[in-house]
């Protein structure tokens, strides 16, 4: 058997035909590289579906039964909708947040821990593309779980959609924000405790207090003010606005916050990767 001839790229002078081909090759290589990360992430989600997909579905179902059916029946209407209809967007958003975050934090930290992150670090893929690949993986799981929770919600109630575009934009942006957040967490994490700390002690309380189960208008003045410092409130509210057409906060402002978070967090992730924090000695 003979060795396949190595595909070696010769140097190219600027503007030449060779340079154009080089650039095209690089674009193609990056596309393939990105797709490879996404495929690897999705097969990880599917391989360990018992950890990635089943628990959030069970949790959401319990919420719908307990809060929606059992307790919700006694709460009565919230802004003209049943309590179940009111919390459904919040519960969907909560599962998108936890799963986008959780997927990236555990996958990237796992890759650090198992050292196979080195495969990516040694490869010619630029850091921003590695970040994007992991974010895509996080979005995939977040949105998949969000979709499953939505389907479960439909077993319990009718979901009215007022502004479809707002629903989609809000869920996509939120998913990106928390996938990026999970990435930052994983970069700094030195052990498994540190990847559960943020979700348990920061993310979950903030989500619960971010208006998933109630309207902040039910809170006293000071508590409303405190709530408005919680970014998750804006995401949940925007998402719920897409469904119900009513919101605790200004929706335009919500989108501004989400977009800003995406930009800042993405820049932070790429900067951390370039610097080698947590990944290179």
């Amino acid at each position, binding site marked *: 058997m003979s*060795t396949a001839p190595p595909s070696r790229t010769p140097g190219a002078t600027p503007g030449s035909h060779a340079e154009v081909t080089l650039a095209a*090759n690089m674009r193609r290589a990056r596309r*393939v590289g990105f797709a490879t990360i996404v495929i690897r992430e999705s097969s990880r989600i599917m391989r360990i579906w018992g950890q990635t997909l089943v628990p959030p579905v069970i949790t959401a179902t319990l919420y719908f039964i307990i809060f929606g059916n059992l307790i919700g029946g006694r709460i009565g209407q919230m802004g003209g909708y049943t309590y179940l209809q009111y919390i459904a967007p919040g519960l969907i958003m909560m599962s998108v947040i936890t799963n986008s975050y959780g997927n990236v934090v555990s996958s990237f930290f796992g890759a650090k821990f198992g050292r196979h992150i080195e495969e*990516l670090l040694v490869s*010619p893929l630029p850091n921003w593309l590695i970040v994007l690949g992991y974010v895509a993986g996080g979005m995939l799981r977040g949105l998949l779980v969000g979709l499953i929770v939505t389907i479960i919600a439909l077993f319990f109630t009718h979901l009215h959609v007022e502004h479809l575009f707002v629903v989609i934009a809000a869920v996509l942006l939120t998913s990106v924000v928390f996938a990026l957040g999970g990435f930052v967490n994983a970069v700094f994490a030195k052990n498994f405790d540190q990847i559960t700390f943020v979700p348990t002690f920061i993310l979950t309380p903030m989500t619960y207090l971010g208006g998933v189960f109630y309207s902040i208008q039910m809170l006293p003045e000071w508590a409303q003010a405190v709530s408005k410092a919680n970014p998750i409130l804006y995401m949940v509210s925007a998402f719920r606005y897409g469904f119900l057409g009513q919101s605790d906060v200004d929706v335009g402002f919500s989108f501004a916050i989400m977009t800003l978070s995406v930009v800042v967090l993405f820049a932070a992730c790429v900067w951390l990767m370039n610097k080698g924090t947590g990944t290179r000695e």
Partner: protein
Amino acid sequence: MKALSLRQLCKTYNNGVQALKGIDLDVEEGDFFALLGPNGAGKSTAIGIVSSLVNKSSGTVTVFGHSIDTDLEAAKSCLGVVPQEINFNQFEKISTILLNQAGFYGIPRPVARERMEYWLNQLQLWEKRETISRSLSGGMKRRLMIARALIHEPQLLILDEPTAGVDIEVRRSMWEFLRRINEQGTTIILTTHYLEEAENLCRHIAIIDEGRIIENDRMSTVLRKLQTETFVLNLRGPLRGTLSLPGYRVTAPDETTLEVEVNKDQNLNEIFGALSAVGGEVVSMRNKANRLEELFMRLVEGRDVGSGQPTAPPTAQADA
């Protein structure tokens, strides 16, 4: 064309350890290069910097003319690395690991599959392609990492102790394999603690100790520099007097063993003569180590030629 060029490369780890203290190194395209040095010398650190796994403190690295500071992607595409420690996902199948690796280098799946088949066959792992990598033996894991480093057919292959913990038969077949891909044009840099391996395979050699390069030359030149050889003489009984061998460095590990260094201008007859004079009867004799090993020890320990009196232990002279 230089496959690799390091200039004044320094690395100080966060804990203050100065692992590299200004390394200059050139490896020509097509070379088979050995990087030797005792544990903790800085070999893996140097390789880590070249492969972007360790941040350098200062200095420059160029791979086939591409600086890792200004042209990192191009430098990385020329490079394949087999690390010292296992670093693939132990829960993935061999085929998955290789196809993903190819993907990270932008190789489309159909091409990746062909190459995977080729390299797995070359490394006798094709039958294992559907195995979860965790369940491979240690030697197979090393070969998997070699296949992984070659799937994008790099111009420069760097192997950090590829034969550590590998049985003799597999080691020999790995040598054959490396020699073959070197002949086909891949530049190879190898670290090893088996000096026989370096002497067998490599044309150039650098020895690094405590973060500095202390020797860097053609293998043949380096070996020629070795002016002396050490012989181990086994005696039938203890000597009856003080051995007098001016100009020779003699040590006596025990009463009936002598180690004598002989350089090019000296001869063994003189030794035997001096031994006979004090009633020494030589029953057997052998070379202490292979030549490279000897040189290595000498460079790393900084020894020099002694007085010719046995130095240790003192009992060797007790009868005087």
